[in-house]
């Protein structure tokens, strides 16, 4: 289902750029912050999933979902949303597969950001 969503949502990125007056340096800094801060949340999700701790998945999945959406990382955001809901509903059986999806989406997102010239 998440595969249908683009790794980077072009219209979302365009809106972001427009909202900051097409300040490309700022967008690059924002992406830099994303790449610096969010791996921690991805690791927290993975660790909680590995323990089967649905409750502990919720908060980092929520934050990663929100940050990813802000920079137009549509697929990663969507997978994190599924993780958050699996966590809320206590579906610990779904966590491992979703975490794998999230890792793959993370790598693809970094790749796409580089392709856009937003990451090094």
């Amino acid at each position: 289902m998440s595969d249908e969503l683009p790794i980077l949502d072009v219209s979302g990125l365009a809106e972001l750029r427009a909202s900051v007056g097409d300040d490309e340096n700022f967008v690059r800094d924002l992406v830099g912050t994303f790449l610096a801060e969010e791996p921690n949340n991805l690791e927290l999700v993975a660790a909680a999933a590995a323990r089967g701790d649905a409750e502990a998945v919720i908060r980092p999945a929520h934050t990663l979902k929100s940050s990813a959406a802000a920079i137009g990382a549509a697929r990663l955001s969507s997978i994190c949303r599924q993780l958050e809901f699996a966590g809320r509903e206590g579906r610990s059986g779904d966590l491992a597969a979703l975490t794998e999806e999230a890792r793959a989406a993370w790598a693809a997102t970094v790749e796409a950001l580089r392709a856009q010239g937003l990451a090094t």
Partner: protein
Amino acid sequence: MGGHGGGAARTGTRDLSGVALIVDDSAVNRMLLVRHLASLGIDAREAVDGKSALESLRGQSADLAVVLLDVVMPEMDGYEVLAAIKSDEALRHLPVIMISGIDELDSVARCIELGAVDFLPKPFNPVILGARVRASLADKRLRDLEAESAAAQARLLATIERQKEELSRFLSPQVAALVSSPEGEQLLAGHRREATAVFCDLRGFTSFSDSAEPEEVLGLLREYHKQMGELIVDHGGTLEHFAGDGMMVFFNDPVPQPDHVARAVRMAVAMRDRFATLAARWAKLGYELGFGVGIATGFATLGRIGFEGRYDYGMVGAAVIVAARLSAKAEANQILLNPRAHAAVEELVEVEDVGALELKGFARPIPTVNVRGLVASAESVPA
């Protein structure tokens, strides 16, 4: 170059001051919000979780105008922070705007029930952010103005109290209170009422003041005014003026006194007694002075009399003139009453008839009595 480009960006918030506190654990979201607020001319502080948000709020909140609050956070979530803000007397006035993703509308509704004023949807739209934050800044400005105005009002009240105290040294206490009362203006503007006027002065004062040293004259007057002044206050009289040895006092205004004639007569009798003590002492110094009083009751006009820069609270009417003339006619130790005053206190006083007096300005003679004293049963009753 580009002279008209610079001004256009500076719109809106120049007149609104205040800082926003952003509480969100997503560094990306904080960075975006700081940027959007900066473009609106609004400074921001950041907190990465609920606990540090509360620490920041309790440390420094005077300049804060609004809190932008995420719901899902580590340590202490948005609900807890909101509840803490709303239960803290010093913080509860702060508007809290919830930051919310599309999935969180249910929790936002709950937050609004808990006291949040609004919510800000993600992704952030700078126009909506600007509108909501500006509304909060305007609220803060209003709140600050209210607080300023309350403080100014308190200062004003303190000033009025001080002026009242100061005034009461110059005016009779009733008039000082009247000037500061809500109905004061109406009463000052003038009204008609039955009132009792009392004039008193010293017999032999003119020749005394011609022959005595000025210091002696002033010293004697000061003692006389002090003693008489106490009795005026004790009996609730309104002192209109002192003029040398003369005094005019009236009753039943501005504070209504159903027993105004009795008060006037009791005061006059007390003054005569007090004067006797003073006179005995002055006699030893060689001063022969007597005390005479005229009292008249009648309808009169009362209110502000005078001119811009110098007003008195005064009584105008025939009764005032009659009282003045009776005082002038009175021999030492006489307290003369007009018929209307006498009729009101017949039960209270022992009088002697002094006949119908011809008074200047009055066509017919006025039947007058002199008060010898209070009847025995009336002496102990307080005025």
